[in-house]
């Protein structure tokens, strides 16, 4: 039976891992290579790296880090942040990424999804969306959750998967950083809309939030979080153990 995945997300800026609350007030945490190794050792099923650097120097530093992580850690690596073209896909894939996550770049140019899927396969293209409730509907936001695109989120995710995205990351702006649990109604709606794996993001505050997530929305394939893992609030090994005891299939590492 396929297991539910636990995915730590590392937001990287100028070579360091950061995590904010509601996308603002970023705090420095640790070395990405060190954190990645620790997560892998403790049973993380996959790692996501978001490059939130704007400068060219920062971007070069990011690919150096990625290469170092890929050289030492042998679990799937997803990379996102600043992916606007097939050339950007190529840049991170040659550094050892397995999947590439597109967000604002795909909103600006939806053809990017299909072009990348055709070239690298759908399994390589992850459509990530920052979603917030506006006027009674789910609305997609761009630019790190700052800009309301006016697009309805479920229609966008459906279009994205039809264009070739092989997985979707649903990041609820409404619950992100609040640590009060995942956005179950939003996730349920997405699971009823797309037929590719759904990765839940935004709102994890404790072990119970993950148990609730997988029990309440069985269609969710993975839970993604950042700060609860970085600060050790939710140790991954203990989380896996708790999930297993609640009859949720997970990979138990050696």
């Amino acid at each position, binding site marked *: 039976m396929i297991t539910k995945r636990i995915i730590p997300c590392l937001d990287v800026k100028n070579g360091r891992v950061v995590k904010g609350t509601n996308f603002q007030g970023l705090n420095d945490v640790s070395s990405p290579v060190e954190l990645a190794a620790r997560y892998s050792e403790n049973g993380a099923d996959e790692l996501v790296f978001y490059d939130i650097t704007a400068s060219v120097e920062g971007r070069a530093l990011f690919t150096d880090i990625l290469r170092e992580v890929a050289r030492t850690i*042998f679990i799937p690596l997803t990379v996102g942040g600043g992916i606007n073209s097939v050339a950007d896909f190529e840049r991170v894939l040659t550094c050892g990424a397995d999947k590439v996550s597109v967000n604002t770049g795909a909103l600006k140019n939806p053809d990017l999804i299909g072009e990348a899927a055709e070239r690298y396969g759908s*399994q390589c293209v992850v459509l990530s969306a920052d979603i917030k409730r506006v006027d009674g509907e789910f609305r997609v936001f761009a630019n790190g959750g700052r800009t309301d695109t006016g697009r309805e989120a479920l229609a966008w995710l459906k279009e994205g998967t039809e264009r070739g995205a092989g997985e979707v990351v649903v990041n609820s702006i409404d619950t992100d950083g609040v640590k009060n649990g995942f956005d179950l109604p939003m996730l349920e709606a997405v699971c009823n809309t797309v037929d590719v794996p759904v990765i839940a993001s935004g709102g994890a505050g404790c072990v119970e939030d993950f148990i609730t997530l997988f029990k309440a929305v069985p269609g969710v394939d993975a839970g993604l979080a950042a700060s609860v893992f970085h600060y050790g609030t939710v140790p991954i090994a203990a989380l896996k153990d708790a999930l297993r005891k609640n009859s949720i299939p997970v990979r138990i590492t050696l």
Partner: protein
Amino acid sequence: MIAIVDYGVGNLFSLKSSFAAIGEEATVTADAQVIATAERVILPGVGAFGDAADKLRETGLDRAVLAAAAAGTPLMGICLGMQLLFDAGEEFGTHAGLGLIAGTVKPIADVIPRDLKVPQIGWNALRLTAPKHAIFRHINDGDCVYFVHSFAGMDCAPSVIATTEYGAPLTAAVAKGNVCGCQFHPEKSGKVGLAILKGFCEWEGTV
């Protein structure tokens, strides 16, 4: 030295790095001569069966791989590389494979319940056949490995050395003589994956 066959499909950085991590020297190569003299050969691959089979033939590396297999060199196909070992693949039409493993690569949708997602993406447990094949000597039945696939080897029962349960038992690994293949990605399967690659590197290419 291990030759990782480079015929223009997929990123081989992790594969090369994973051999380095277990202390084995591996080279990514498109040189038939290097493949002919290698101690072991890895046939990787991602993408669609037909495209990959075409690329392998266009580069002439199909002959290099077949020659290595005939010479008794231990050979491992990974993911699509494993599928190419089969007689044929039914992805976007029927395409001929290398014919090293008897069987056909078919959509998993044909055999799994309709409510399961395709592709299967994620970590799933291996069910090893008894007795355990040599490449699995360092791992245990039930260990999880990382899968990404929409197709799987079928009608290949005599060669199956591991299955995985995804609504139905799917072919996870095959072996025949000095040729073996993994549907999952050992280079992305953590310590278990590295242990399988180690087992492959110690394997003499006999059943």
